[in-house]
C-alpha cells in the first residue's frame, strides 16, 4: 500500500520518526524506504568514528545537518588508552567541507580536535549553529577564536570537560557585535575568561538560556550577568566566594536581589569555589530546581549541604559528592520524591581514602525515591541485602553503575560475593540498558546477567569473574549487547572465540589485563575480516616477543566497514 504513495508522503511520515534507531529500522524495510529515508535523514549518529568513513556518510546521507561522532573507547576516560591512540576529527571535517553538506550541528565525544579543524569548520558551513565537545583534546583557545569569529549564526557552544590549551584570553571577544543568536554557552572547563567580553556578550544575547561559567568569573560578575540574563534556565556558577576585602554586604545583597528575579532557572551547577556563607543567596531558586550538580563543589558539605538539599523538593537529577554521607542521602530520600537520577562521586578520587557513603544511603534513596532510574554510586561497601532491597524498591533502572572503591570487596556482613545482589537488580529492572559492576563477583553474576538482562546494551566489568564461563554467559545471553568493556578479569581465548559472529552485532569490545592471548586475537581477526582487532602495546616494540601464547595487555576490537584504519600509531597493531 505504501508503494503507491509518492516519495514526498513517505518523507513526511518519516519526519515523525526521529530517533536514529527507528530511522535505521525504517531504512531496512525495503529499497524504496531505504532511498526515501536516506535522502531525508538530517541527524546522523556515528558511535565509532572508525566504523565508517566520512565519504560513505556523505554518500548515503547527503542531507545530513547534524552529526554526532565518538572516538576513543570509554576506558580512555580512566587513562587506560595511551595518548595518540587516535580519534581525529580532521578527516571528517575536511571531507564534509569539500562536499556540499550543509552541516549545522556537530557533537564530538572523546575525539582529538585540532585548531585547524575548528578553523575549517568555522569557515565551511554558513549555517553552522551548534558545536558540542565532550572530553575532547588537542585544541587551544585559537580554535575557539575561529568559531566565535566566523560562525555568524552560532546558537550553541558547549565545552564539557575538554582539555584545552589556553593561550591568549581573547576568544570570547571574537564574537562579533552582530552575534545575538546565542542560546547556550558553556566554558566551565577553561581556567581563564575575558570578563568584559563575557558581560557584553551576555548583554546582547537575549535568547541565552544556558550559561555555564568557569572559576574565573567572580561573584560580582555573576551578579551583573544575571541582571542581564534573568531568562536563564540553566546556570553554572563560577567562583561563589566573596573577597574578604570587598564590600561583602553590598555585593551579597545585590546578588540576592538579582537571583530573586531569575525565576526560570531549573538547572544549577558549578560552585567550583564556594564560600558556604554565600549559599543562602540561591535558596530562593532551589524550590524550582529539577537538576542540581554539586559534584564539583568540594567546598559545600555538612550542614550547608543539607540545608540546600532540603529546599530542593522538585529535584529530578542530583549529582553530588560523597560528602553527603548516608545521613544526607536519607534527607535526599525524604525531600526529593521525584528523583530519577542520582550520581554520587568520590570526594577522594584517588582511591586512597574512604567514601562516606555505604549501602545504607543507597537503600534509603531507593525507599524514598521509587522513580529512580539512573544511578552512579561510588561507595565504601555494598551488601547483597541492600542491593536486593534496592531492586525491589526501584524496578525501573535504565542505568545502574556501582563502584565500590575497593573493587573486589565482598559483602562485608556475609563475606559473600555480590552475585545475588546484582542478580536481583537485573532481574527486577527489565529495562536495564547500562550496567557497571564492582565488588567481589564470581561467574554466577554473569549467569544472572545473561539470563535476565535482556535489554542490556553496555556492560562494564572490572576485577570480576572466575573463568571463561562468565564472559560466555554474557555473550550468549545479552542479545542487545553493544558495548562490552572488561579489565582485570580471568577471561581468555576460549570465551573470546566461542562466538565470533557476535562481535559484528556489537559496536566494540575492550579487554585489558585479561587472559586473552596474541594467538587468540590473531585467530579472531582472521575469521572476522569486518572487525578491526587492535592490540595496544605500550612496551618497547623490541621487547614484545610476538609469541602467540603471550597474553595481550590491551585489546580493542570493533566492527567496521572500512577495514584497518590508516592513522593508527606505532603502538597500535591491527591484526589481520
Amino acid at each position, binding site marked *: 500500500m505504501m508503494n503507491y504513495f509518492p516519495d514526498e508522503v513517505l518523507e513526511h511520515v518519516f519526519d515523525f520518526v526521529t530517533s536514529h534507531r527507528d530511522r535505521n529500522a525504517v531504512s531496512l524495510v525495503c529499497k524504496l524506504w531505504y532511498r526515501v529515508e536516506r535522502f531525508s535523514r538530517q541527524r546522523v549518529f556515528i558511535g565509532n568514528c572508525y566504523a565508517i568513513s566520512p565519504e560513505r556518510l556523505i554518500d548515503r546521507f547527503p542531507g545530513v545537518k547534524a552529526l554526532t561522532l565518538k572516538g576513543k573507547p570509554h*576506558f580512555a*576516560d*580512566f*587513562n*587506560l588508552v595511551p595518548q595518540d591512540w587516535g580519534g581525529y576529527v580532521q578527516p571528517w571535517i575536511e571531507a564534509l567541507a569539500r562536499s556540499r553538506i550543509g552541516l549545522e550541528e556537530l557533537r564530538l565525544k572523546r575525539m582529538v580536535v585540532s585548531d585547524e579543524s575548528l578553523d575549517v569548520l568555522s569557515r565551511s558551513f554558513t549555517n553552522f549553529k551548534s558545536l558540542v565537545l565532550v*572530553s575532547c583534546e588537542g585544541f587551544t583557545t585559537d580554535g575557539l577564536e575561529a568559531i566565535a569569529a566566523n560562525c555568524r549564526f552560532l546558537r550553541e557552544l558547549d565545552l564539557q*570537560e*575538554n*582539555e584545552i590549551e589556553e593561550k591568549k584570553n581573547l576568544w570570547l571577544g571574537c564574537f562579533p557585535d552582530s552575534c545575538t543568536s546565542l542560546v547556550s554557552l558553556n566554558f566551565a*572547563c577553561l581556567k581563564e575568561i575575558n570578563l568584559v567580553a563575557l558581560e557584553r556578550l551576555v548583554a546582547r544575547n537575549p535568547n541565552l538560556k544556558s550559561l555555564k561559567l568557569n572559576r574565573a568569573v567572580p561573584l560580582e560578575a555573576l551578579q551583573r550577568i544575571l541582571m542581564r540574563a534573568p531568562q536563564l534556565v540553566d546556570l553554572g556558577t563560577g567562583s561563589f566566594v566573596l573577597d574578604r576585602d570587598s564590600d561583602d554586604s553590598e555585593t551579597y545583597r545585590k546578588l540576592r536581589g538579582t537571583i530573586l528575579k531569575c525565576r526560570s532557572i531549573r538547572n544549577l551547577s558549578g560552585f*567550583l569555589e564556594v564560600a558556604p556563607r554565600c549559599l543562602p543567596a540561591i535558596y530562593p531558586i532551589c524550590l524550582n530546581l529539577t537538576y542540581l550538580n554539586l*559534584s*564539583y563543589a*568540594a567546598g559545600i558539605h555538612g550542614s550547608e549541604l543539607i540545608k540546600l538539599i532540603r529546599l530542593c523538593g522538585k529535584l529530578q537529577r542530583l549529582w553530588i559528592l560523597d560528602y553527603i554521607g548516608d545521613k544526607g542521602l536519607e534527607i535526599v530520600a525524604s525531600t526529593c520524591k521525584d528523583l530519577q537520577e542520582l550520581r554520587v*562521586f*568520590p*570526594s*577522594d*578520587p*584517588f*582511591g*586512597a*581514602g*574512604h567514601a562516606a557513603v555505604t549501602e545504607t544511603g543507597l537503600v534509603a534513596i531507593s525507599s524514598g525515591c521509587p522513580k529512580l532510574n539512573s544511578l552512579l554510586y*561510588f561507595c565504601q561497601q555494598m551488601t547483597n541485602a541492600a542491593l536486593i532491597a534496592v531492586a525491589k524498591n526501584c524496578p525501573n533502572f535504565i542505568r545502574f553503575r556501582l*563502584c565500590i*572503591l*575497593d*573493587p*573486589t*570487596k*565482598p559483602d562485608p556482613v556475609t*563475606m559473600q*560475593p555480590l552475585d545475588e545482589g546484582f542478580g536481583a537488580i537485573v532481574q527486577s529492572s527489565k529495562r536495564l540498558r547500562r550496567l*557497571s559492576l564492582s565488588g*567481589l563477583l*564470581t561467574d554466577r553474576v554473569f549467569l544472572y546477567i545473561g539470563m535476565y538482562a535482556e535489554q542490556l546494551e553496555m556492560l*562494564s566489568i*572490572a*576485577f*570480576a*569473574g*572466575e573463568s571463561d564461563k562468565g564472559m560466555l554467559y554474557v555473550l550468549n545471553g545479552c542479545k542487545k549487547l553493544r558495548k562490552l568493556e572488561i*579489565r*582485570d*578479569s*580471568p577471561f581468555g581465548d576460549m570465551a573470546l572465540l566461542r562466538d565470533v559472529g557476535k562481535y559484528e552485532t556489537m559496536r566494540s569490545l575492550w579487554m*585489558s*589485563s*585479561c*587472559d586473552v592471548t596474541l594467538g587468540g586475537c590473531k585467530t579472531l581477526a582472521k575469521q572476522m575480516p569486518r572487525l578491526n582487532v587492535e592490540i595496544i602495546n*605500550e*612496551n618497547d616494540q623490541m621487547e614484545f616477543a610476538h609469541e602467540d601464547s603471550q*597474553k595481550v*595487555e590491551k585489546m580493542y576490537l570493533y566492527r567496521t566497514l572500512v577495514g584497518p584504519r590508516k592513522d593508527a600509531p606505532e603502538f597500535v597493531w591491527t591484526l589481520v
Partner: protein
Amino acid sequence: MSPENRNYMPESDVVGLNLKETELTLGLPGETRVTTDTGVKFGTKRGFSETIDLNLGRSNVKCHDKVCDDELENDVLGGATKSLTEKAQLVGWPPVRASRKNVMKSCKFIKVAVDGAPYLRKVDLEMYNSYQQLLSALEDMFSCLTIRNYLSERKLMDPANGVEYVATYEDRDGDWMLVGDVPWKMFVESCKRVRLMKSSEAIGLAPRTHKNVQAQLRKSLSQASLE
C-alpha cells in the same frame, strides 16, 4: 577481603613493573630499598607510622601477609592494601574522569627544612589525613629521626645524638607556628612551609609545655619504648 576468592590476578607485568620502578620513595637519595621478611618495604611511603600505636591499617597489614602467602608479591592490588595511600597506584581505578580528578586534587606541595640537613625536601600535604601521617612521612624522609609523641606536642628525635626537633610551620600571615595546634585541615590550608627546628632554638614558641615534655622525655626513655 578474602584473598582465596581473588582469582583475577592482574597479569599486567607491564603495569606492575612500571609501578615498582616509579614507586614513591621518600628516603634520601642514595638510600637503598630494603624489604623485610614481612614484605614491608622501607624507604617507601607509608600512610601511617608503625612506631605509633594506631589501629590504622592494622587489618591491611595482616591482609598483606596473607597476600604474600598466595605468591602475589608484585600484585598491584595486594601492594595497594598495605596502606590507604598506596591504593592510589591502581591504574584507572576508581573510574573517575581525569577532568574530575583534577578539580578535586588541590596538590599542596610545601618545602620541608630540617636544621642541619644539607638540602630541603618537598611534601604534598594533600597526601596525608592527619598530623601523625605527616610526621611519619617526615620520619621516613629524614630517616635518621623517630617520632616521640607526648600529650599534644609532636616531636622528632635523632636517637643517634639525642638532638630533638620541633615541627614548626610558617602560616599565611608569615608567622612561625608550632605544628599541631589547629585541626588538620586548617593546618593544610594555612601552611606554607615546614621547618624542623632544633628544640634548643624552639624555646620561644611553647616555653612551658616544652619544659614539661623534656622532663617526660627523660622519664620515658627509661621505660619501654613506644616502638
